[in-house]
């Protein structure tokens, strides 16, 4: 029997899911619904939008109004949904290729506008759905089916891109630190403005196998080694060198796009009134 949280927020009749054994997406979706539960979002007033790729199949299993859009465009669809009905909570789930390659333009502009949506990027550093090609977050020299001699390109720091582009909330989480994952996503959901969360994830079948990182357990152990909660890093800066920091990395206040546009409406109706 699935737990009460799972039964409430997942379409259990759609299970089992399509993800490979040991994949991190299931853990991240699990953490996401617990964050939604923790924040108490109204299920009928919450829309989940995804693009194309392994992680974007999450919408099919989540018990909300859900839309599985085109590759890279989830944030653009979400922009239309949010502006048409600002009262809705809009959560966007993307993969690293989806968000940072084909959707890179939409990513930086959604952040710049500070539109009030939460963007969750499952970063497994590889295109899983299409068979293990290198993505914009694949580290340099890592192996992929389209990088048979190692990747010649350095990967993006997604959190850095988000912050530089204007996101007002930036967080990083990892399935291996589940309580922190739930708390960070919950804070992102509560944030007003563009909130961005990178979920470091493991793809044992493609990335792990091609890069000799072992199975899911070894990959999760490695995830624990290469990440460090930002609070720990502040206390022990000498141990944080070279680590991927997790938790809330950045938060600031800036009017969300919808708020600024509602002021435009006031100006416009006032100006229209002048002519009557």
């Amino acid at each position, binding site marked *: 029997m699935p737990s009460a949280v799972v039964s409430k927020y997942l379409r259990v009749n759609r299970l089992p899911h399509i993800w490979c054994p040991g994949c991190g997406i299931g853990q991240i979706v699990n953490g996401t619904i617990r964050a939604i539960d923790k924040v108490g979002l109204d299920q009928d007033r919450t*829309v989940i939008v995804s693009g194309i790729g392994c992680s974007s199949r999450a919408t*099919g299993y989540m018990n909300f*109004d859900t839309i599985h859009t*085109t590759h890279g*465009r989830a944030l*653009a*669809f979400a922009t*239309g949904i949010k502006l048409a009905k600002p009262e809705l909570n809009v959560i966007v789930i993307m993969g690293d290729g989806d968000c940072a390659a084909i959707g890179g*333009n939409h990513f930086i502009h959604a952040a710049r506008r500070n539109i009030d949506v939460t963007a969750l990027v499952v970063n497994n550093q590889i295109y899983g759905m299409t068979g293990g090609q290198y993505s914009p977050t694949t580290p340099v020299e890592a192996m992929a089916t389209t990088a048979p001699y190692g990747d010649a390109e350095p990967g993006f720091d997604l959190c850095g891109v988000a912050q530089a582009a204007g996101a007002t909330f930036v967080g990083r989480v990892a399935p291996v630190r589940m309580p922190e994952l739930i708390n960070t996503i919950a804070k992102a959901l509560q944030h007003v403005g563009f909130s961005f969360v990178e979920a470091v994830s493991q793809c044992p079948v493609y990335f792990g196998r091609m890069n000799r990182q072992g199975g899911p357990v070894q990959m999760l152990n490695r995830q624990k080694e290469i990440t460090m909660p930002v609070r720990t890093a502040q206390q022990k800066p000498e141990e944080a060198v070279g680590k991927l920091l997790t938790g809330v990395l950045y938060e600031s206040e800036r009017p969300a796009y919808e708020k600024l546009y509602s002021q435009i409406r006031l100006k416009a109706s006032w100006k229209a009134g002048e002519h009557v």
Partner: protein
Amino acid sequence: MTYERPKPILLQGNEAIAEGALAAGMRFFGGYPISPSSEVAETLARRLPQVGGTFIQMEDEIASISAVIGASIAGTKAMTATSGPGFSLMQEGIGFAVMAETPCVIANVQRMGPSSGFATAPAQGDLMQARYGTHGPHPMIALSPSSVRECFDVTVKAFNLSEKYRTPVVILADAVVGHLREVVTLPRPEEIEIINRQPPSGPPGTIRPFEPGPDGVPAIPDFGTGYRYHITGLFHDETGFPSTNSEKIQATTERLVRKVEDHREEMTFVEYLYMDDAEVAVVSYGCSARSSRAAVKAARARGLKVGLVRLITIWPFPEHVVRQVAERAPRLVVVEMNLGDVANEIRRVTRNSVVVRQVNRHDGMLITPGQVLDGIEGVMSHA
């Protein structure tokens, strides 16, 4: 509300598209600047916030059509406007809107192509892209206005068809009609027929969101109204969830096409001039129909039995109209600013049984009435 007063006003075609959309209830525009369509966006940037709507200039045309589909799914009538290069980028989103059965309107103010072509020169080269631009079998509705007032009317019709049939509708305007200024009297709001999407027949839990009604069209549960359903660009069954069942895929493909093609006559808008006794029919649309009209009148003044068939509906192709015309006047002059898109459609639907004389131009200059007259005289000498 300057434009709602029923008095003559000077209006541009692109402005009339914007006003027609507002009259139809459109409240979301997402677009990207491109000549010669930009005045649609500029007008709506000013007008939409006045009426509580939303205008957003997106980062590109792919984002524009995506945001438009998102807004429509949330329950707001939505549109974008673009021209050739942007229309090419929008094909991805148009395919999604077909598959997800999302109403939306795309105004394509055509310019010369391919590629950047000639930004401010008129052309009518996007008919086939409108019809077949996105991949896979699919239906398409496209309407082509040829005057400023018709820009308004066709936009209202585009929204009505889109909402009724849950499918994207393309307005095939052109640089001449879009930039033309004419004195027009717009209809009063109560004179405008507005069709809104059909809401679900039952509460959440009692309906299947993609179950077609008697006309082949499912009702639409707007996002945020408690139905908690799934939309995907993958083949799906009546529940909305992906399906790999080959019977259902075939049935969905056929239903998507049939829901439009079965209603071809209802979607056919066409104007006839002097066709009662015409021995030769000039077939044209959009800006070319303006020159054709002048040529037909001049031909009549010379005593030639010539009529005009002006197509407003381009897709689905008004096959029944063309066949009727061809029976009565089996010599046709087809006038268009491409290399013969409608001419070829006419050959197809008449199985090459009629004489088709093409009058084409693709050099940035309008087809003149004199060229059409030459075409008429040429086909008349064809015994």
